[in-house]
């Protein structure tokens, strides 16, 4: 069992966003979670990422229940890449010791190797999302390379392609396939077509997770 959520409750003040939500995800299982905007999909994902702590119930990810320990077991790719205004290397290593080969492998898997090689400072080039020196697709690929390099057991995806145009989104999806191979994946989105080939699809409705037939969306 990779993820075990039991009777999990989470909310702000009086408002419950997740109300006794239960979920079991097996190791290497890919599940998709659908739901309208603002329903709490991202909150659920952040709970699974160890960013939030359940107010009651159980949240166990890769055998860990403590949020700080959960974070060590997961990698996450979000709608916005969340790049640091530092070099590509720093964005991938996040300051942890990492071999050159591992960085290169991550860049290759994220289809960034050629582009990075063409930069004057290569992997040490500074990236700044807002300055416009890289495109949205490249930024998202760096975020994916970072997740690949972390080599976590559980991959959490929060609408990673929704801010991209169709063509770029398709290319990014390919790199996501590499990232998610052989991993436990939870992908939240409001676009069912991005969940092609997933093992199970659930829907978040009024604070509860409801099972859906995956075929319906394929």
């Amino acid at each position, binding site marked *: 069992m990779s993820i075990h959520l039991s009777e999990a409750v989470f909310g702000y003040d009086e408002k419950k966003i997740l109300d006794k939500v239960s979920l079991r995800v097996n190791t290497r299982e890919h599940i998709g979670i659908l739901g309208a905007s603002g329903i709490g999909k991202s909150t659920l994902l952040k709970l699974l990422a*160890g960013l939030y702590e359940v107010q009651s119930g159980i949240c166990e990810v890769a055998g860990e229940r403590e949020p700080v320990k959960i974070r060590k077991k997961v990698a*996450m790719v979000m709608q916005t890449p969340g790049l*640091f*205004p*530092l070099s590509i290397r720093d964005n991938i290593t996040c*300051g942890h010791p990492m071999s050159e080969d591992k960085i290169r492998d991550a860049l290759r898997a994220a289809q960034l190797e050629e582009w990075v090689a063409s930069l004057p400072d290569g992997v040490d080039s500074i990236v*700044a999302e807002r300055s416009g020196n890289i495109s949205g697709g490249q930024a998202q690929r760096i975020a994916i390379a970072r997740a690949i390099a972390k080599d976590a057991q559980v991959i959490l995806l929060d609408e990673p392609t929704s801010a991209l145009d169709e063509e770029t989104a398709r290319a990014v999806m390919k790199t996501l396939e590499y990232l998610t191979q052989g991993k436990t994946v939870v992908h939240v989105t409001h676009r069912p077509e991005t969940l092609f080939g997933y093992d199970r699809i659930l829907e978040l409705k009024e604070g509860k997770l409801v099972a859906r037939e995956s075929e319906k969306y394929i």
Partner: protein
Amino acid sequence: MLESLRNIFKHLGGGFLYAFLLILRTPVDTLLCIINALFLKGVFEAMEQGTPEALARCCICFVAANGFVFLYNGILWGEFAVFSARMVGKLRLKFLDALQGLPLGRIEAMTDGVWITRGNADVKMTWDLLSGALNIPHFVFAIFRIAVASVIMYCISPLFLVIELAVIVPHVFLRHRYVVKPAEQLIQKAQKETEQTAVVASSLLAGGDTVRIFEAEGMLEDYYTESSLNIVRTRLKISVRKAWGEFMQLLLGRGGYLLLFLLGCEMVRRGGMNFGSLTAVLQYRGAMVAASMMLMNSLVEIKKNSVGMKRMEEVFDDKQ
């Protein structure tokens, strides 16, 4: 820059009135300096001659003369305010008209933010250049004050003028070469580093989720510490320059003062002049030093604001 000024006034009109008002305003500072010098001269001469009536007359005349000059200045200030408001209004409307005359493609070639800066900040910079403190008016006032003070000092004793110039010229040169110019570049560097630190700090907040999932706290803290220390290092370099500036100002400023003072005392001792005249000389010297500093600071501001005027001119002359 003169070409740009002429061009701006060609678009707006009012160039002659501006020059006329500037000429009327120019002698105010110098008059105040002369009144002060004459007052000190008169008072100390009255003391030397032992005439209390002359002393009282000097004090009354000093207050009255100041009252007259400030009345003149107040009236002129009011008139200039009306002229200034009218010109800023014209400048803004002219900008709007120029903008509305541009093809859409030309407008969209730059972001709204850039146009808003041109329409607001550049208008302000242009008018600051023409009327603000430490800009063209103060530049003109400073030159006038230096010229008048030099002539008066020369008339009192050419030696005083030579000594004063021998101190002021290197002072101005050294200050510009070793303080103002390097500090200007360092200030820009410090600004960039401050922005960089702010960006790293923002990513600690905005990218809080990524930071925690990928455990990037240590890396960002190191970067933040380093960029904060970079700010400290650059600003300390500026401080070293400023400290040199202060040291030089005191050394050369007071040194020049002391030289004139001692020379004057020797002349007083020999009976070549009275102490009253010496106090007046020291007042003119003070006026020259202050005007030289004003001149230098005005040059820096004029350079800064003329960039805004140049951009304004580009919009006005855009015929595309």
